[in-house]
């Protein structure tokens, strides 16, 4: 029992450190990170991990800086899934797939896009965007809204 607990704890610690890909740099109003079925209130400085979903309320907005120096932010009523993220700080190779389900998103691409132009993809319900080193904004309005 004790060993099981110890193994679990060390897994948890390893996960926390190995999994951080970005950090919450701005958070106003209701902002949450959905992680493994849990909904965590997002606070300044909080680490962001691969597979996290950033959710903002009607009064919320949030900004995240990633390890490859890409930055993004979401406006009110947004749901943004960080589906895949990996970055090698030595080679600058990596991949970044994000999906905006609804709301507004602003993106400034980072080092991995400079290294390989196909590294970053942003999805919406109807589109896939390939990013060739740039700043851009995306809005998704669900029908009926």
């Amino acid at each position, binding site marked *: 029992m004790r060993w099981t607990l110890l193994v679990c704890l060390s897994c948890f610690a390893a996960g926390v450190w190995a999994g951080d890909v970005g*950090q919450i740099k*701005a958070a106003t109003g209701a902002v949450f990170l959905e992680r493994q079925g849990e909904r965590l209130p997002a606070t300044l400085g909080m680490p962001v991990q691969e597979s996290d979903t950033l959710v903002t309320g009607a009064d919320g907005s949030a900004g995240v800086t990633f390890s490859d120096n890409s930055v993004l932010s979401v406006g009110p009523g947004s749901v943004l899934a960080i589906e895949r993220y990996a970055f090698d700080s030595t080679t600058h190779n990596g991949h970044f797939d994000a999906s905006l389900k609804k709301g507004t998103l602003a993106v400034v691409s980072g080092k991995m896009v400079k290294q390989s132009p196909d590294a970053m993809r942003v999805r919406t319900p109807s589109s896939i965007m390939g990013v060739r080193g740039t*700043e851009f904004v995306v809005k998704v309005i669900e029908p009926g809204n």
Partner: protein
Amino acid sequence: MLVLVLGALVILGAIYAEPVPPEKTVVVLPRAVLQRPPDETVVVLPSADGHTGTVVVQRGGERHVLNQPFAASRLTGGKAEITQLSDAEVRQSFGVALEALPARPTTFLLYFITATDELTDESKGELKKILAALKQRAVPDIMVVGHTDTVGEPERNDLLSARRAERVKGFLIEIGIPSAQIQTAGRGERELLVPSADNVDEPRNRRVEINVR
């Protein structure tokens, strides 16, 4: 009499029985509304240096290449088009999101007097500006890397570069940046900004890089 009592019970039972749930209302939406995809807008923005990159929007078999400032790909009521927006229109639609965009990661350089961890006079002036810029960031994540020129022994330069980095870390702690958010490293003479032979006094190599995220 019995009939009356029984009758009363039946009536009471009817009154106290659970109310019959109202019939469920089923709203049948027209097919077109159910299948309508969300409206979407993608706009490419000029970056701070005036350069505009490219975003390729792939929607089914359709492909929109956006590479002009404020060029937009729009999907409205299932219909896609390329259009041109104004700065003001973008501000209106995306203002709150753009406001929340974190400060871009950046690098500052400070230079040192030969063989010391003392800043040059010019860099002392620069330091004030750098500290003011760092104060603007809510949760800065900082990597300070010290370097030397090629004068002297590499081992001594390793120590000198580490001392320079620590000195700069001290300035950052003084303005209230938590120590835990500042990492330091000394690279000695391994990463010359200006390549040189051994034992060359090169002021541009005696430096500290402050990388802020």
